[in-house]
């Protein structure tokens, strides 16, 4: 019975307007963001190129440099009494309490040997010597002699705790601020990673997943909400409830059908970068990973679609309204904003939409791989849990609980009140 129901549900989805709108939006988004990858495909870097920028940038591991950049920022923040953080991509100015300020000033003293006033003098002196009107030379604060890097890191961690999320003093940010342009060796390494470890297609599929994740973090909720609301609008619930089919079969067949129908166009679209790769690398000795698209579609994108759809099912079933759309909208907004400074990939965290806005940075991917796997598994489990709860709710409704009396739903005026 499940198979039959699943087939019917797929048919239902295929006949609904909202599904085709979904497909169109998906396709348009794909074309606009990833349109032609041909112009971006990486070739082997040659010695003596002007710039290797397309192969990324290199992290400066010069500890001194990192310390310098961070401490300058700290000194200025203390002197001007203004710290900015970017918790969700929007700027936020932080005001500190007296104790917090004292503590941070203490840290400045320990790391640079400068008190607040001393820092102020130092900054003033710097800008007198280097008039910002002529050319802006950033202020640099020197770390104290003998300051150990680990000690420095510990202190900066404390500062970022005080300031809250998104500050300049987290380890990632500090390292990120100290970046150098890519050189030939670095570029070669990135390219080799792409060819050998990624099978060339892997890199582009990661890029595909990055972009498609953005739209898939919200679009499925519309399809899910519509399907559930349709039953309510047609007032067919009783007919379905009174039948033999179990709540489990009904809900899971609907869910499975929606997932299949929604992932199908995604998988078709994911073949486009593969095809581009094939054409681009024709004649070369590069061994392509032809099946990478399966790994990425199912491993990277499917969990996002699963959980967005499951949440949509759950909220729509329980509220019988379009609330799921708004909730998902908020979640999407948060996920996107949180990922704004992690675009380069490798820092996947627990984000619904893991970002990796480049075909390279395989090392970042490798480093963040375990976290990514945990992340994706988490969302799959969450999706299953939400579906299970939905089944329970459906079953309760079937027995006559959780229903509202009267034929017309809460949001709609009752005929007699009109």
């Amino acid at each position, binding site marked *: 019975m499940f198979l039959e129901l699943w087939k019917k549900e797929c048919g239902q989805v295929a006949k609904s*307007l909202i599904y085709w709108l979904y497909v169109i939006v998906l396709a348009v988004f794909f074309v606009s963001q990833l349109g032609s990858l041909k112009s971006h495909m990486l070739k082997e870097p040659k010695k003596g190129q002007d710039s290797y920028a397309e192969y990324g940038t290199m992290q400066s591991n010069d500890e001194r440099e990192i310390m310098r950049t961070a401490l300058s920022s700290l000194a200025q923040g203390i002197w001007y009494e203004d710290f900015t953080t970017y918790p969700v991509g*929007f700027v936020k100015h932080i005001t500190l309490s007296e104790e917090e300020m004292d503590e941070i000033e203490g840290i400045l003293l320990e790391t640079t040997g400068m008190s607040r006033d001393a820092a102020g003098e130092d900054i003033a002196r710097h800008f007198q010597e280097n008039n910002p009107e002529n050319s802006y030379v950033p202020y640099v604060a020197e770390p104290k002699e003998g300051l150990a890097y680990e000690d420095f890191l510990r202190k900066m961690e404390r500062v970022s705790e005080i300031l809250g999320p998104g500050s300049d003093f987290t380890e990632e940010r500090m390292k990120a601020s100290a970046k150098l342009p890519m050189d030939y060796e670095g570029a070669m390494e990135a390219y080799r990673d792409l060819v050998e470890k990624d099978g060339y297609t892997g890199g582009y599929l990661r890029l595909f997943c990055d972009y498609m994740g953005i739209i898939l973090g919200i679009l499925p909720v519309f399809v899910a909400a519509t399907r559930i609301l349709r039953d309510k609008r047609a007032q067919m619930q009783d007919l379905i409830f009174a039948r033999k089919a179990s709540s489990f079969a009904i809900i899971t067949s609907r869910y499975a059908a929606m997932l299949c129908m929604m992932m199908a166009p995604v998988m078709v679209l994911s073949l486009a970068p593969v095809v581009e790769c094939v054409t681009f690398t024709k004649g070369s000795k590069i061994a392509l990973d032809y099946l990478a698209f399966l790994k990425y579609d199912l491993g990277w994108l499917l969990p996002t679609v699963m959980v967005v759809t499951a949440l949509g099912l759950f909220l729509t079933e329980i509220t019988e309204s379009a609330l799921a759309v708004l909730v998902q909208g908020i979640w999407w907004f948060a996920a996107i904003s949180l990922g704004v400074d992690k675009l380069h990939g490798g820092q996947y965290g627990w984000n619904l939409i893991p970002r990796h806005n480049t075909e390279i940075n395989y090392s970042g991917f490798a480093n963040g791989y375990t976290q990514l796997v945990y992340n994706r598994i988490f969302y799959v489990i969450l999706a299953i849990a939400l579906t299970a709860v939905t089944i329970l709710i459906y079953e309760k409704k079937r027995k006559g609980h959780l229903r509202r009396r009267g034929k017309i739903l809460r949001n709609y005026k009752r005929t007699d009140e*009109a």
Partner: protein
Amino acid sequence: MKHNVLWQILLSAVILLLSPLILGLRNLDAVQSAKVLEMYVALIGIILLVPVFQPEQNKDLRDLIQSKYTKISVIYSVRVLAAICIGGLMLLIYMWVMKQGNCEMETGKYFFGVMAEILAFGGLGILAYSLSDNVVIGYMAPAVYYVAAYGGGAKYLKKFYPFGMVTDYDTKYVLFAAGLVCILFGIIIRGKSRR
């Protein structure tokens, strides 16, 4: 009418009230203020305006209402107007709070800019709803519009780019007009709908 609009007001109020937790509302310069207003606050346009037809979603109920004296399009227009006023009020309060927090902004210009966006987002949703008879699609249209704009849409959207407060203020006039047109057509089409 009051009991129809309540949850939308509440939800809008909630997302506005929560915003200081994640955004900073103090000491923003002109560009940052614009960003907060046009990328976040304008979203209340979607919440407040799109569900305007929902109370009469049931077809029988629609027929019943349409047979009464007051034309149904008048009812819708009143609702839309009320929603816009409430949105405007919320916006004013929010901007006032920002000003208290020492944010830089050109009040009149920004106010009009965000209202234009509210009309555009809401209007697009209303039109989508009336054409499809489906409130979910009504929400989807402005959501997709927003996502498109967010994902670097200035190129494609040109004069319809919703986040042009600082870069290209002309877009706001376009949005304002487009929003009004969408709302108008949405109400007319819905009023005539026999579906």
